[in-house]
């Protein structure tokens, strides 16, 4: 695709100069850090009071660990149920960090919203300004769509990596976990988190090529999300991954290593490619 590198470079430069984008990302990271901070404080307080109660009753220190594990199991099972995972899907993580299932929850529920806030007007802004015409006499629609999707994914990926690392450090300092032994699993988790934004970004490309006004594009993509989640939760990539890993594919990440991660990235990329193609076709057929 001739010109792809130039489109990506230009879009990245535009993103770095976009006050709206930087404000959105900054605000979302701030909220994520604040919520995590509060959540960690609650966990630490609960642990401390449980420990104090056990000591008051003259029970041995091991009882605290048993109780803590039971509490952890309850929290994680509740998270699994809220995500619609089968019972026991998250069992492998019960003896591991709190942070992993919490991040999993964040990824599956909130990440698409972050993507929408950043990418809802991927094309609609250009369509309403008419500035797309300048580019389309010089490069193909496919290059333009692929370039914009890639650049947005890179911007989001960088912000997510930063936020993800920050949250882990915050948790490690406050809660004492995750520990270094969780490192490989956390890295894989991070990679999957970032890759999971790809189809959402590409989906934004589709809706923003269909709708000329940015506000209408935002409403459309949120409506689409609601429809996908409420009416057909197991549709598209979540459904595909669910069929490949019936026990909750995310839970297997730190148990089976690299293979599920690669499969997940492939599935995400495949769906993103399909959406890029659809966006290109829409752009080819619509009048500018």
């Amino acid at each position, binding site marked *: 695709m001739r*010109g792809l590198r130039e489109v990506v470079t230009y879009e990245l430069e535009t993103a770095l*100069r*976009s006050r709206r984008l930087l404000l959105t990302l900054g605000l979302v990271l701030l909220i994520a850090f604040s919520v995590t901070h509060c959540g960690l404080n609650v966990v630490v307080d609960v642990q401390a009071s449980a420990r104090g109660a056990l000591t008051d009753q003259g029970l041995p220190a091991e009882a605290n660990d048993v109780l803590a594990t039971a509490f952890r199991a309850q929290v994680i099972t509740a998270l699994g149920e809220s995500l619609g995972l089968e019972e026991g899907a998250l069992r492998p993580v019960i003896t591991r960090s709190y942070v992993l299932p919490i991040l999993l929850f964040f990824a599956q529920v909130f990440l698409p919203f972050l993507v929408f806030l950043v990418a809802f007007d991927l094309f609609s802004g250009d369509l309403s300004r008419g500035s797309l*015409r*300048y580019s389309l006499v010089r*490069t193909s629609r496919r290059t333009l769509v692929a370039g914009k999707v890639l650049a947005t994914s890179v911007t989001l990926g960088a912000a997510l990596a930063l936020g993800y690392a920050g949250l882990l450090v915050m948790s490690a300092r406050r809660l004492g976990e995750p520990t270094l032994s969780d490192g490989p699993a956390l890295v894989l988790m991070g990679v999957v988190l970032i890759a999971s934004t790809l189809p959402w970004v590409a989906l934004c490309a589709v809706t923003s090529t269909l709708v000329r006004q940015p506000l209408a594009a935002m409403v459309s993509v949120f409506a689409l999300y609601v429809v996908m989640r409420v009416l057909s939760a197991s549709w598209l990539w979540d459904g595909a991954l669910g069929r490949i890993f019936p026990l909750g594919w995310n839970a297997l990440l730190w148990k089976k290593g690299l293979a599920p991660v690669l499969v997940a990235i492939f599935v995400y990329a495949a769906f993103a490619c399909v959406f890029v193609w659809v966006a290109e076709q829409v752009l080819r057929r619509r009048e500018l």
Partner: protein
Amino acid sequence: MSAPPVALQAVTKRYGRHEALRGVTLNVERGSLLGLIGPNGAGKTTTFGVLCGWLRADGGSASLLGVPPAAMERLRGRVGVMPQDSHFPPALPIVRQLQHFARLQGLPRDTAEREAERVLHEVGLWESRTKKGSELSHGMLKRAALAQALLGQPELLLLDEPTNGLDPEHRRRVLDLLVSLRGKATVVVSSHLLGDLEEICTHVAILVGGVVQATGRTEELTRAGRRMRVRVDPGQTLPMETLHRRFGADNLRYHGGLVEVTRSEDDDAKDAFAALLRVLLDGGVDIQDAQRGVSLEEVFLSATQAGGGLTGAS
């Protein structure tokens, strides 16, 4: 034989019930500067849209340098287009925007930077190069849009209303720029400013109601009329007897310093005009201005009122 720079064959385009183009056929000669003129709603911008692939024609065919509009990207760098009302993206300075467009055309980085500088100088925007798209005035936006079309010195330029909304100084600069392109590139310009087009265009096409009413060399269209006009000092006495003898009393009008003569059909246009001037000069008349034929505006008005009264000159 190479394909014509611009070719439209029986192109039709509808917006709902409204028929914007009704079988537009137009071929533009290589190296010519063609003015596409027409009243509001005549279909000029729609014609540009169809040519550039921004709008899909409902019928007929169109091509730029032998390539259909749908495959416009194959022509990258060979065609420069200035849309009528498109804005630049708001975030980046215009110099960076232009470098980006030049890079998209396939120019190396250093050439792209030089090209951006050159075109900004050409349109008089170099001093405003650090302004962002959102900070440009209407006139600046127009010139920035023209600048991006000139990047890489394309062999074909399609310019939709390039002088509309410009102050007199920049209008003059743009007109001079277009004149300097004559013979070097094929240029199609649409405009309402007929005086401008008459001055710079080698060819004209008049579009009325989605139909090309007249097309041909500007000179041929404007001189095709049999009328000749000479402006003189109103206080002077004219050699009326000689004028009557040469052109006939019925074909001569003199009022308020304006001499209007209609030559007979068998009278050669060039000879008649030379004879008129000679008679007046020999009679000691001080000539202020002389015009042979009709102005482009008159041709245009005649075409719009007749709705097809004029025929193609080529």
